[in-house]
């Protein structure tokens, strides 16, 4: 069995938010929820890096460990899914998750939140694969259709990779062994007067 993983190559991500848009569109995600989001570190400064992040489908998932109704389960592919029929909207998964993946349709007084929503690795949820009900609650089940997550498929620079962890890391290893320890962009250092090795531009 494959072990599904996401990997975002920060050297390639250009913060176009194409993955976010692809996901929101594919799954008809409720307004205000973004199952995937792009974070830009050192925005506007030298050394700026962007990275796309969603649920990372942790092996020892903190969200699943703290859920009071135990509504998470991990598929044989290592995808962490949850059952919205069991979720009581307590918010504990958000407190525990390192990546801010779980989200809620509302945050109202008396901690009314609705059902938790998060990235499913395009694998839907419990219940019949590709049923209307599954689509309404969890979005499309591309995994059941034999496809990989749409965000990675749509990524213009192929910064975002999704799929079997071994293949994903193989691709990444090929990239970084050729890349050296500098950005690959030709002429960059000459044009922008960057002194190699002085460490200002990581």
């Amino acid at each position, binding site marked *: 069995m494959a072990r599904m993983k996401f990997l975002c190559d920060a050297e390639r991500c250009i913060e176009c938010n194409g993955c976010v848009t692809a996901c929101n569109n594919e799954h008809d995600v409720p307004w205000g929820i973004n199952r995937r989001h792009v974070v830009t*570190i050192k925005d506007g400064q030298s050394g700026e890096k962007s990275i796309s992040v969603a649920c990372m489908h942790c092996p020892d998932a903190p969200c699943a460990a703290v859920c*009071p109704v135990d509504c998470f389960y991990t598929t044989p592919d290592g995808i962490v899914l949850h059952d919205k*029929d069991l979720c009581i909207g307590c918010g504990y998964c958000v407190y525990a998750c390192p*990546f*801010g993946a779980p989200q809620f349709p509302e945050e109202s007084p008396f*901690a009314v939140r609705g059902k938790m929503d998060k990235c499913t690795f395009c694998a839907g949820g419990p219940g019949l694969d590709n049923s209307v009900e599954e689509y309404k609650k969890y979005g499309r089940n591309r995994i059941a259709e034999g496809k990989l997550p749409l965000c990675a498929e749509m990524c213009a620079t192929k910064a975002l990779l999704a799929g079997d962890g071994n293949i994903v890391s193989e691709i990444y290893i090929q990239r970084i062994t050729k890349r050296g320890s500098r950005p690959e962009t030709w002429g960059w250092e000459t044009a922008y007067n960057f002194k190699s090795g002085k460490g200002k531009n990581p």
Partner: protein
Amino acid sequence: MTTTNRLLPVRRLAIIAVLISLLGGVMYYQVVSSDPSNPRANFWRVIRAGIPAYTSTPAQGHTILIQNGGENWREIRNGIITRISPWIIILALIGMAVFYLIVGQEKLEKPRSGVKIIRFTRDERIIHWYTAGLFIIMAITGLSLLLGRFLLIPLLGHTLVSGYLGASKILHNYCGPLLLIGIVSEIVLWLPFNIPRKIDFDWLKNMGGMIGSGPRPHIGKINAGEKGWSWLIFLFGGTVGITGILLDFPIWDQTRYIMQVSHVIHATVAVLFVTVSLGHIYMGTLGMEGVFEAMWTGSVDAVWAQQNHDLWYEEKMRETGETPATASPQNEQRA
């Protein structure tokens, strides 16, 4: 010829040794003189520390790429609070059972006189039972949310427990502010009676004559045990109330860190609060004869008052203009 031949391997060995030591020296120099910090690694290390960054979809905490508090919170909640809290409560129950078996009920020493002395007004009793009822609801729903996954799901299955905990969450979140109102009213109402005095320390020495030997100490309307419980209500109630409000109203942009800290404080103090309340429930019912009616009907028997709150009893008698000795059984004393 033969000498040279014999020396050749030795010379080779010497050359190899020199080369190896040179190479080692060069490697050593490279390692020592290179910058040990890797700029890329440092960059990601900073991310790991949870610094805020930019995102075009900033809601729901998304400006932080990795928040580390979650794993700590998980360890504290799952590893410490859920593991230890059932034992704290079970030990308290065992302790109370042992206390009951050894010390037993504090009996009235004289037969009831039939004279009633008003101890709590109607308003006080309404506030007490309002608070007590809500407290019990909050304790049961709160403990269910904390321990239900481990205690109830194996027995009842996921669907039933999810329904029950869903209802518990709603009850807990709506009753919480109502309980806080009750606790604040109790503080306002009873704070003046609960200022510690010197005689309270004498009372504490043998718990008002319940344990050990020695004479029953003099005490006014409220004894040191009741005062202690009141102060714990003020302290625990205030702490649980403030953290509870923070958890209950996620509308002021509380960070996840604030929620984690609030939850840990809320759960820990609440478990202690429930544990101490068991002691209060015991003392108010089983632990002492004639005490329950004080809060239920509002008045106590004169004999109970004289035995347990002698100074208050004498004060009451003076107020009504009768000497304690001549208190007639037919007269209802007014507060």
